């Protein structure tokens, strides 16, 4: 096995690792109870998956063709910078549009600061089954 072949195997295994992490992240998005925990699954592990996959592609092109791709490096840096920012903005928008926390969450220290004395109903939360039943009656 030459060094070139070993580098190609490392690249391919990095891509496989990234894809497995991505499936785990998608399961997290399906199974977790509310928006805030889901954004936890979506931003962290999905970013790791994309970083591993793009790094694998970079190493593969580097060892196979001897081609150092600036665009892949730029893509890696861009995803690495923007994914946490996007997750933070979505969580902030979700909290300010009064998406409720899941049952069993702990203290909500931000609520008295933001919505003090304001007991309006949440705007974007879909009604639960009991409420829709009550409306129908």
């Amino acid at each position, binding site marked *: 096995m030459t060094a070139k072949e070993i580098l190609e195997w490392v690249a391919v295994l990095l*891509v496989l690792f990234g894809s497995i992490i991505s499936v785990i992240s998608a399961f997290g998005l399906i199974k977790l109870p509310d*928006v805030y925990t889901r954004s936890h699954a979506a931003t962290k592990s999905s970013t790791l*998956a994309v970083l591993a996959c793009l790094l694998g592609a970079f190493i593969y092109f580097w060892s196979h063709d001897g081609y150092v791709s600036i665009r892949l490096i730029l*893509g890696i840096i861009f*995803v690495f910078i923007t994914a946490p920012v996007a997750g933070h903005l979505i*969580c902030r928008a979700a909290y300010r549009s009064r998406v409720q926390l899941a049952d069993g969450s702990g203290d909500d220290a931000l609520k008295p600061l933001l919505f003090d004395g304001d007991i309006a109903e949440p705007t974007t939360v879909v009604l639960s089954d009991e409420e829709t039943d009550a409306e129908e009656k």
Partner: protein
Amino acid sequence: MKETILLLALTFFMIAIALLLYRVIVGPSMPDRAIALDTIGVNLISAIAIVSIVLSTKAFLEAILILGILAFIGTIAFSKYIERGTIVDRKGDS
């Protein structure tokens, strides 16, 4: 062997996108859908990287950058719309 592993990885990414599509359709609130769309865009980036390895071409690498930028700007626009109700603020109009 390498190509088989790469195609397996591509299949995994497609399974992940299908699961995220469930969250986009069902998702109880709008931020859920926005998060799932952002993650779909990020997974498409890696799928494009794998396709360009399998086809051994460098022509798709620009699409990775463009898709990353578009997914980010789309998420920013969604979050601003969810939070304020508008996307573009005009002066004296609000």
